[in-house]
């Protein structure tokens, strides 16, 4: 399967068009006709960043660096502002190393709050890996939500991969255990483990997640090789709390942002990475399997501003 970069980029751009209209558009309208890059101009830009969900701390930091650049004449005219911010944002969101592919099998654990899109993301990833010729097992670890197992089963059928499933209400750790054993025994390339959605404020559910994480590590050294938090792209500043709390319970290796199509202001991505320093692994801009793509900082910054 060929994932056209151009196609994806234009979709992302279209998805973020509204942000762009407001963010880029606002910056243009703020700066038009102004010779001096004074405080009022900078404050206007800060408001525009906040309105795009970038968040107060990150918006303030961006403006502080812009102010310095104005002082040092690196930003001399209004036309320099957007390229400057684009570069800063690109640098901000490009953290960490690329995805690792270690492990035999390579184990990916998916976690997140309710409704973030974990199961759908697993379906898309399984489709993607299978299309790349990898052998995949998905594990129906969400034994809580009604019909979550059936939902993943349908995705595994579409992706043409195997599924490990227990009854509804079963212990998610047991599902993870079986999936890892099966992955090793059947010499699979990749095991992707689903978990029930849980709010990061529910300490008992976070304890359950820690147990799943522990069992995975016990059954295969170094696993999970990737622990990905799925975040709904329409979430506001709460996304940062989600990342911090999940990261404190189980060590996250990266983030997947879903639903960045049309509804989202996208700016939240900048705030999340800036405040948590965790890398974005994938972003989703649509319903189709190929609408989930590895994150590219430069493309994102260009689409955003």
């Amino acid at each position, binding site marked *: 399967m060929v994932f056209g970069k151009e196609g994806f980029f234009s979709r992302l751009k279209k998805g973020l068009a*509204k942000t762009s209209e407001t963010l880029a558009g606002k910056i243009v309208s703020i700066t038009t006709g102004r010779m001096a890059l004074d405080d009022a101009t900078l404050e206007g830009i800060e*408001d525009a960043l*906040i*309105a*795009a*969900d970038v*968040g*107060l701390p990150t918006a303030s930091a961006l403006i502080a660096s812009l102010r310095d650049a104005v002082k040092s004449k690196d930003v001399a005219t209004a036309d320099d502002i957007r390229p400057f911010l684009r570069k800063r944002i690109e640098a901000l969101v490009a953290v960490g190393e690329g995805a690792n592919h270690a492990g035999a099998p390579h184990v990916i654990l998916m976690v997140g*709050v*309710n*409704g*973030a*899109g974990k199961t*759908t993301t697993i*379906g898309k990833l399984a489709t993607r890996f299978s299309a790349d010729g990898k052998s995949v097992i998905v594990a129906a670890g969400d034994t*809580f*939500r*009604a*019909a*979550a197992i*059936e*939902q993943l*089963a*349908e*995705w595994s059928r579409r992706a043409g991969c195997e599924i490990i499933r227990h009854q*509804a209400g079963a212990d998610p750790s047991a599902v993870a255990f079986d999936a890892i054993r099966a992955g090793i025994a059947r010499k699979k390339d990749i095991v992707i483990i689903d978990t029930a959605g849980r*709010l*990061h*404020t*529910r*300490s*008992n559910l976070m304890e359950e997640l820690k147990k799943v994480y522990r069992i995975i590590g016990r059954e295969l050294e170094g696993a999970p090789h990737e622990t990905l938090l799925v975040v*709904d792209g*329409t*979430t*506001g*500043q*709460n*996304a940062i*709390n989600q990342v911090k709390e999940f990261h404190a319970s189980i060590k996250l290796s990266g983030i997947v942002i879903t*639903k960045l*199509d*049309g*509804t*989202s*202001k996208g700016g*939240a991505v900048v705030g999340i990475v800036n405040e948590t320093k965790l890398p974005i692994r994938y972003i989703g801009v649509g319903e189709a399997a190929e609408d989930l793509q590895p994150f590219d900082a430069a493309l994102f910054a260009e689409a955003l501003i």
Partner: protein
Amino acid sequence: MFEQLGNRLSEALRKIKGLSQLSDANMADALGEVRLALLDADVANEVVKDFIEKIRAQSKGTAVLKSLAPGQMAIKIVYDELVSLLGGHRAGINMADKGPTVVLMTGLQGSGKTTTTAKLALHLRKEGFRPMLVSADIYRPAAREQLSVLGAQLEIPVCYPADLNDPVKICKKAMQAMKDEDANVLLVDTAGRLQIDEELMAELEKIKKEISPNEVLFIADAMTGRQAADIALTFHKRVQITGVILTKMDGDARGGAALSIKSVVGAPIKFSGIGEKPEQFEVFHPDRMAQRILGMGDVLSLIEKAQEAANEEEAKKLERKMSAGDFDLNDFMQQLNMVKKMGPLNQLMGMVPGLKIPKDAAIDEGALGRVEAIINSMTKEERKSYTIINGSRKERIAEGSGTDINEVNRLLKQFVQMKKVMKTFKKGGGLPGMPGVGRIGR
């Protein structure tokens, strides 16, 4: 929920609380803080601007009441505005004057429509209606199965014509099926859709045309960011939203969505989802939510929950026993069961004014179960008069309940303390920090 916003707002308000005079200068300072607190809580920019303007206008002279200090007056103004921002007063489901009532559930993917559909049905059944469910979500794998499973769990009928693959036809079928099931409210779950998805939004219009709903509810994730109001507005333009349900309110979202949607769309927030279980669902009270945001606690909700859980008569009997001083372990157990019925403890704690729960304070729900086991392992006589419980009896109780002597001791100690507290109650003291609560039920 709303904790962070609450903290920042009360910080801002503390500054003006003690002021003897409100001036433009000292108000400007506080309002600046209020503005930042709201912005940081994901409230839409235009809503923040409007809110601040209203408060500024109202705090200028004319409206000051004689009975209040100017600082208190300012807080009252903020509170009043917050209440009206949240919708003014509570609003229930619009029921059809005659014939069946139809409720259409709409929203983005992952906002919690299917779970909420089941919760609302359970709520309506408690109110004496006969709900039926149908899912018109033919897109998400196993979405219809999910609603069927939930319906089966709650023993609420679900119309599931598996052979039909057209949302409009499915709805039509469900409308006919209502008679067979003797249902009088139909809740229609729909596929999650983006407001910019032209095809699916057109489908939603078609569904609405087919079923002519009495209510069109927009289900919104409380954690949604600044665009919440825009999204709701687009749905409103296509299918005329009559109410909003906020979900995932048990998280720590700062509540911007809640504060923005009502003022932009004009449709009231009717209910909120506060947990994963079907009964964790509440009627939304704007005044109480405003109190909670401002850290005034939510004494009213707490009292109502207590009243709902406690069988009136049981409560009266308990009260008599309390005042007579012969409160025993049987009564203690009964009271525990009432507390358990009221819902997760940490939710209750959030409603108590002046009680700030540390974020990491986990409340051990399992402890309640162990207490129950311990009391169940006692003999009738022991429950009646705890003083006869000596060392060997304790050992037997510990073994019978699968706990240890320490836990039995701890429970007895708590029980004795509770008896002592009750004595102070009787003297009319009330709980510290809970003004008036001591007088409930007298």
